């Protein structure tokens, strides 16, 4: 008896986690016109999705923005983490603490302050403002992830590299970089996902010139959601699973 209770519990949790996703998957292949009846298998919503230019445009916009924000955040974040780790300077503790402030503060606060800032400096709302905004909330996550990895890094390895003839830059590239690569990858993926599904900040700092996917879907809800959104959701799901698998593959290859 006692062995079955935990298993039942686990089954419930997994049901809770995966039933919505399963429904989405299933209905993306549904042939019926309205969402709630089953009308047999079909790819019609996928065809509809690819024919829907505004939706596809917003998808590409979102992917490009997420990739750009994640890449920039990883580059800047890694350098910031390295500086915080390596050098002892005044304000180091403060900088470290401020990272958490950005991470913990409600998104709406960040959104309003960024908007105020952009209006103040007269920045046209569009791709640039979105990129800066997404960079802002991705950055702390990358820094924290890389910092954690650096904390476990043995600095004597860099000395060993120098001793064997590597310049400082070469030692960082050949010894430190491989050591923190998992953190960089994790940071990039985290940033990519955060950017991709952000609604609040994008609502405030986005402009009509660059519409991102979550906002597009959001506005579609008001006029009635079509099942092609299910197809889109399924594609995004497959995308993120592929990204996850790829990162795992890279990490394993590095380890063995």
């Amino acid at each position: 008896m006692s062995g079955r209770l935990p298993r039942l519990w686990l089954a419930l949790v997994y049901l809770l986690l995966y039933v919505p996703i399963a429904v989405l998957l299933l209905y993306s292949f549904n042939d019926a016109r309205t969402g709630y009846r089953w009308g047999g298998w079909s790819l019609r919503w996928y065809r509809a999705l690819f024919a829907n230019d505004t939706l596809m445009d917003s998808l590409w916009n979102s992917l490009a923005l997420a990739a750009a924000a994640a890449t920039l955040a990883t580059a800047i974040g890694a350098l910031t983490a390295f500086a915080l780790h390596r050098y002892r300077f005044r304000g180091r503790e403060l900088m470290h603490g401020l990272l958490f402030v950005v991470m913990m503060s409600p998104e709406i606060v960040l959104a309003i302050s960024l908007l105020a800032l952009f209006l103040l400096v007269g920045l046209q709302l569009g791709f640039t403002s979105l990129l800066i905004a997404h960079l802002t909330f991705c950055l702390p996550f990358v820094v924290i992830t890389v910092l954690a990895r650096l904390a476990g890094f043995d600095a004597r390895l860099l000395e060993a590299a120098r001793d064997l003839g590597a310049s400082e830059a070469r030692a960082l590239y050949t010894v430190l970089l491989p050591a923190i690569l998992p953190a960089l990858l994790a940071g990039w993926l985290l940033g990519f996902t955060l950017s991709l599904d952000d609604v609040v900040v994008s609502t405030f700092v986005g402009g009509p010139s660059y519409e991102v996917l979550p906002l597009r879907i959001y506005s579609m809800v008001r006029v009635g959601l079509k099942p092609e959104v299910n197809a889109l959701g399924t594609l995004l799901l497959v995308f993120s699973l592929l990204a996850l698998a790829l990162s795992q593959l890279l990490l394993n290859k590095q380890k063995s």
Partner: protein
Amino acid sequence: MTSPLLSLRAIGKAYAGRPVLLDLSLDVLDGEFLTLLGPSGCGKTTLLRLIAGFEHPDQGSIQLAGADLTAVPPERRPLNTVFQQYALFPHLDVFGNVAYGLRRERRPRAEIDLRVREALDLVQLGEFARRKPQQLSGGQQQRVAIARALVKRPRLLLLDEPLSALDAKLRRQMQLELKRLQRELGIAFVFVTHDQEEALSMSDRVAVLHAGVLQQLGTPREVYERPANLFTARFVGETNLFPARVLETQGERVVVDCAGQRRTLPTPGFAPHAGQAVNLLLRPEDIRVLGPDADHGLPGTVIERNYKGSTLDSLIRLDSGQEVLVSEFFDEDDPAFDYRLGETVKVSWVDGWEWMLPADG
């Protein structure tokens, strides 16, 4: 030919105002095995880091083969280091670790392959080329670290307590191996240890370091038999110390009073004067135990006997309260050897076997 390979001149180094090395001068000759011996925290690692270029001296200069090293970064110093905790690159396999230094020199692939194989064979790790460091035992990791440094063919190799993490048996074996490598390759070694036995058995010369000051530099024999001061005497092996006072000097001899006994001894390395307080140092194996009726010697009681295989160690408490450690080669047939616990005896030594130091030195 005998001009030094490495020459340290009046080196001084302080961390946050606390001196770690003081006015230290030292020469390392080409091809010699020089050991830095000293207790924990005396500045051994700091000295190696200065030579390797990871730290800069506050004062003094470092020259290698006649060239000043002060402004030369670590990667351009023609010497290599075996680090205290090995510091192998975890993301590279054994081959990659050993090849790392050659790749930085942009050697052709074939040459790298060949030299790495040679280096691995030298340390008997030929079959382990594809293993990761984490998959090796401590002794094997140690050998990878040595191969990684040696493959660069440096003229000088710095080794920071390379054997301290190994168990006694492996340690003994690695000592022999290191010594063999050093002799075959003709590379000068600066070897750090705080184990005096290791220092004495492996080195051509020993530099005894204490609190950042070079106490003595000499062959293992010199350091052991003729220590420059009390610190060296006590740190390098067991020693017994008998306070004495100079009564008079007679040409080549000096007459001292040691616990009421008059002894005429050869003149020491310094110039004694009448009335001077001195210490007579005797290694445990130089002390003789005599019966209670002997006509000379200091009376005492046997309070401990330890059979050590080839030697028999005894602790004897003199009537003055001082305890004397005696180590005698075991000889079953010698009846004089058979002292029991609690028995009264006299301890003495052959005049001239002692080593005399001024008491205030």
